[in-house]
């Protein structure tokens, strides 16, 4: 079905499925089929923040004090997070918007992705403060084998769905020859790709950030890199909402509260969905190994970090109706909760540059010569 930016057919969005129904026409939010997405939009917008509001200047001094293994941990995590948010800043839009059928869900996806771009911008803010020229860090993201391996797994389900949708929207259902490859397109196959993609995104939002979050907050526990930690707290708060949305989508499908065909696909693809999650858990543990290959950091080591991943994974898997395969019952890093508690997340005015950041930016860009004609 060809995509149209304004479907002129009268549709009733209260009876459309979330995806693969009629394209959305009127962006209206007075009524919703699934209220949760409207509520998530409101909450996410109420969380609005700007990286520049957080003063990271003290981190530069702290960074110099870190040991070499600790610097490796800090910078590698930033690279990995930059990758994740690069993907998330565009992919939900490109993959889900062409097939979404509810106005509230369409806007949720756009809002969600927009916040991922704020996350991306904050990494530049952090790195610019640490390095006169952060290019080397950014450039390594597409060269570093450890990161590349993760990038492949994260983007492949998106890419699969996007490609199939493109063929479907331009050539329709059937068997097509594209670039010498035979591609079979039908509704069920498309929906399966959507289901697997949503599971992969859910796993990303659920656990892929938590190893780096733990490292960031472990530095903050030692009163190091606190500007960075403040930013990561704001990011973590957003990620919790993103996760809530993918959990809701998966549960609406599985419980037959949306598209009945998705309920049967959820059953059919149960094992594959579980494998996607377990693979993400495994990759996070390998990431911990990579981070600590040159040595640990105070307050954190590979084993405890892996236990934390398992602890989080149990909870996240239960939330989408999967089993809880890991032994760990109590939180191995209880102090993490202090950083994930939204009461503590406000950007306190006295600690930030809210009033001064604009002035500061102008200051640094105006040279003495610019005042040549000024009589003071």
């Amino acid at each position, binding site marked *: 079905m060809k995509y149209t930016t304004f479907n002129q057919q009268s549709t009733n969005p209260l009876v459309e499925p979330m995806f693969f129904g009629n394209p959305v026409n009127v962006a209206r939010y007075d009524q919703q089929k699934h209220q*949760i997405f409207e*509520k*998530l939009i409101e*909450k996410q917008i109420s969380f609005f923040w700007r990286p520049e509001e957080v003063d990271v200047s003290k981190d530069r001094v702290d960074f110099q004090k870190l040991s070499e293994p600790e610097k490796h941990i800090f910078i590698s995590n930033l690279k990995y997070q930059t990758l994740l948010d690069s993907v998330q800043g565009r992919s939900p839009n490109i993959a889900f918007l062409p097939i979404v059928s509810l106005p509230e869900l369409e806007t949720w996806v756009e809002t969600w992705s927009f916040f991922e771009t704020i996350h991306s911008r904050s990494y530049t803010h952090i790195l610019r403060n640490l390095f006169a020229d952060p290019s080397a860090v950014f450039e390594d993201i597409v060269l570093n084998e450890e990161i590349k391996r993760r990038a492949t797994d994260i983007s492949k389900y998106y890419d699969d769905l996007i490609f199939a949708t493109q063929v479907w929207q331009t050539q329709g259902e059937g068997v097509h020859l594209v670039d010498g490859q035979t591609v079979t397109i039908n509704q069920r196959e498309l929906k399966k790709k959507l289901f697997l993609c949503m599971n992969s995104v859910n796993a990303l939002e659920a656990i892929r950030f938590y190893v780096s979050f733990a490292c960031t907050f472990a530095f903050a526990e030692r009163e190091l890199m606190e500007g960075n930690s403040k930013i990561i707290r704001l990011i973590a*708060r957003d990620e*919790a*909402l993103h*996760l*809530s949305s993918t*959990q*809701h989508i998966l*549960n609406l499908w599985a419980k037959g509260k949306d598209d009945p065909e998705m309920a049967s696909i959820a059953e059919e693809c149960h094992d594959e969905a579980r494998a996607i999650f377990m693979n993400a858990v495994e990759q996070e543990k390998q990431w911990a190994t990579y981070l600590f290959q040159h040595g640990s950091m105070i307050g954190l080591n590979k084993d405890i970090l892996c236990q934390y991943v398992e602890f989080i994974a149990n*909870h996240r898997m*239960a*939330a989408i109706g999967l089993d*809880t395969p890991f032994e760990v*019952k*109590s*939180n191995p890093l209880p102090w*993490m*909760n202090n950083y*994930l*508690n*939204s*009461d503590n997340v406000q950007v306190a005015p006295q600690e930030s540059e809210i009033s001064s950041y604009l002035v500061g930016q102008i200051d640094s860009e105006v040279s003495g010569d610019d005042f040549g004609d000024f009589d003071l």
Partner: protein
Amino acid sequence: MTSEISTSDVLPMKMDDLFIIHLDDQTRLACLKDKTLLESLEAHQVEVHFQCREGFCGACRTKLIEGQVDYLTDPLAFIDDDEILPCCCVAKSDLKLKLGG
């Protein structure tokens, strides 16, 4: 001014403001109406997982076997029909909970 509290002042308040939380056959806890369920449980040193404490992360998801709760803020995290988010609700009756899912 010294305040003399008569039983008639205290008792009605107690009956109105306290609900009982049953965790298992042995454990019964008093729960204050003006505290969130999470705060009540924490006051009794019961470990409940939490992160956001505001109803959107789902960390505190708990099974409600019997009873009713009122939400102070809209729960945004996914919960099943038989689950509650203790961080943003108060008891409306005596409750029977199953912790640690």
